[in-house]
């Protein structure tokens, strides 16, 4: 099974929709341990991506992802803007001129994206950031493929990993980002960025299932 450009485009569109639907929810999560803008930021960025997609959906996947990244960088702001921006830029750079993606390409896309986030933000698992959702997600994806699972199985495991990682941020004390200023008061709240990462990966699953 290979992933088509259309599926990637519909992933991005679905992500835009899910960020819009969850704008208030993500912002509320960010109220508790941040500055009440994460949903607003993500929605602003992905609405712009949605606006741009028609002009780029005919180019290759690498370019679509890179443009998505650049759009996020120049519209989201905050911490999540450069981080998600880097995610898509690096993913796109790793898939330059691809028109379809193999299973390994999908892993490359996700993992390279995540590595970009780590190199910019320097967060580790346990710091209560989007990395807490991404890391187990990408590990589960790889693990499933390595054990002979197919793409859908891998992606399901990926989303499960993200969801678990997202929930696991609740008891953590934040060590990176704005929530870290709260010290122990950050404990007991789910990280907004981990939540948006889960949502984004979940939309990829949907796009692959379609």
């Amino acid at each position, binding site marked *: 099974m290979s992933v088509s450009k259309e599926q990637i485009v519909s992933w991005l569109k679905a992500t835009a929709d899910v960020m819009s639907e969850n704008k208030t929810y993500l*912002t509320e999560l960010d*109220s508790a341990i*941040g*500055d*009440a*803008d994460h949903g*607003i*930021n993500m929605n*602003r960025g992905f609405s712009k991506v949605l606006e741009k997609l028609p002009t780029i959906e005919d180019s290759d996947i690498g370019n679509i992802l890179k443009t998505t990244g650049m759009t996020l*960088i*120049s*519209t*989201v*702001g*905050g*911490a*999540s*803007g*450069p*981080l998600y921006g880097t995610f898509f830029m690096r993913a796109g750079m790793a898939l330059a001129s691809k028109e379809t993606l193999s299973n390994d390409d999908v892993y490359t896309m996700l993992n390279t994206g995540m590595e970009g986030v780590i190199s*910019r*933000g320097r967060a580790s698992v346990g710091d209560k950031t989007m990395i807490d959702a991404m890391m187990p997600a990408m590990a589960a994806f790889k693990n499933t493929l390595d054990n002979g699972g197919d793409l859908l199985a891998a992606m399901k495991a990926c989303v499960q990993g993200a969801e678990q990682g997202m929930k696991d941020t609740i008891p953590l*004390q*934040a*060590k*990176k*980002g*704005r929530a*870290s*200023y*709260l*010290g122990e*008061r950050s404990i007991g709240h789910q990280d907004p960025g981990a939540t948006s990462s889960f949502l984004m990966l979940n939309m990829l699953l949907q796009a692959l299932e379609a």
Partner: protein
Amino acid sequence: MKKLINAVDDVVKEQLEGVAVAHPELTVKIGPHYVYRADAPVAGKVAVVSGGGSGHEPMHGGFVGMGMLAGACPGEVFTSPTPDQMYECAKAVDSGAGVLFLVKNYTGDVLNFETAAELAHADGIKVQNILVDDDVAVKDSLYTAGRRGVGTTVIMEKIVGAAAEAGKDLDACADLARKVNLMGRSMGMALTSCTVPAAGKPTFDLGENEMEIGIGIHGEPGQKRMAMTTADEITEMMMNEILDDKGYSRTVREWDREAGDWVDKHLTDEPYSEGDQFIVMVNSMGGTPVSELYAVYRKVDEMMKARGMTIARKLIGPYITSLEMAGCSITLVKADDELLGYWDAPVNTPGLRWGV
């Protein structure tokens, strides 16, 4: 939410349009947003540029002008601006002498300004990023994103802006900015939350008898919540944290122009001691009137005298705010003759003006 705004999505844009018509000595660009001296680039002078989320006015846009910032990049409310704003602004103000980005230490600001520096460098602009991280409410840099950049930013922008105006080169301006940061400490508190227009309701709830101590400038909750008390006790609490602070260490990323890459730099500041003199700012978070700041200033002065310290210069008013939040912050910057000299130099901006 009751505010003097039109559409929530246009808040920043419309405020900038107001700045544009009010201040013809500034050029205001809308989309990407940035504000710069209409007479920029000023030949031979380093351009000092800052930026950050909106909602802290007069900072930063209100500090653009002769003797202070060459340009400023306002983000959405409480959201760091994006690299394209910073990059476009840098191109507009660079005279060839280089651009110094003064960056408040928040993950978002740091990451976005880093990208901007890379873009500017790739364009052949001499560039440096200096961090402000002066908020003593954040206790360590190991288990947090590090101290936030707060009040010292205002004083740094004034002093480094004056040095740039005096013709100091990029490295000298960067050294001076780093020095101001190492001399500066702040602490803030809130009596009320504030409301981000796009969110439409207060970021947090505070009881009628509660306050937040150790807040930043983004309407976020602080270090701790306490029962409300007197101005004297609040001032004492904040001043003790500032005065007793024992030298803070951090690792910052600065730009290596030769290598075209980031290098880590370890910086530690020294405790304050008897005989030191200071620039002091007692700042309103927005909703607290200047009258109350004077009650705080009175206690600050008393405490510093008791420790044998001198207030050489002061600012009392709303300079770095969190929308309409009620509360205040106190900033001390230990000052030598060099700093005081630049402090006293003429400045002509919407938010700070003297000597001209």
